């Protein structure tokens, strides 16, 4: 158990509305990530954070923003949800070092449906 909690776990929202997904970790990890999972695409990185207020874009960042005001919380916001953002969203934490490499541990996922 990597101590990661995602909320909400399931959400249905309407096109054009803003949506925020929350990721909370209990183990003080510096690195946090948001991935989305879609059939045939595996997992794709949306944004990541390497410290409080330090974030950067991943490969599919358009339409998403993130914030990290505290070590333990990493928020993902869909500014104006579209049907193409219907997906499963996974938060993850990263451990780096000689014994860990760049090992990532995942939360349980948030299922988002945009109608």
């Amino acid at each position, binding site marked *: 158990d990597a101590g990661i909690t995602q909320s909400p776990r399931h959400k249905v929202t309407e096109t054009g509305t803003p949506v925020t997904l929350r990721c909370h970790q209990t183990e003080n990890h510096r*690195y946090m*990530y948001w*991935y989305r999972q879609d059939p*045939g*695409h*595996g*997992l*794709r*990185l949306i944004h*990541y954070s*390497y410290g409080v207020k330090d974030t*950067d874009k*991943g490969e599919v960042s358009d339409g998403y923003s993130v914030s990290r005001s505290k070590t333990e919380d990493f928020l993902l916001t869909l500014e104006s949800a579209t049907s193409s953002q219907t997906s499963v969203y*996974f938060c993850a934490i*990263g451990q*780096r070092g*000689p*014994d*860990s*490499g*760049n*090992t*990532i*541990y*995942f*939360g*349980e*996922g948030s299922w988002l449906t945009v109608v």
Partner: protein
Amino acid sequence: AQSVTQLDSQVPVFEEAPVELRCNYSSSVSVYLFWYVQYPNQGLQLLLKYLSGSTLVKGINGFEAEFNKSKTSFHLRKPSVHISDTAEYFCAVSGINNQGGKLIFGQGTELSVKP
């Protein structure tokens, strides 16, 4: 930059038979390699990882993988599968010095174990 190709999208196999899930990667720098397993409606669980040293890596649930640098492969094997191994398996790569410790994932292989 790195990329990952999982050569089989679906692998059906009978219970107690051996299985190999194939993964090739591309990278201009040294890498860390990972296999994750995802059971239905769950997050991803780390099966095993290659950081350095012995090219044969053993993981949980009786799985092992072999790193072949010359063939840029990291194939996952199990000598005898169980029904409970039915899941989706993801291969992932990370450049050793990449900023943020990001993982790049393959598209996944669905392992279906039949009685």
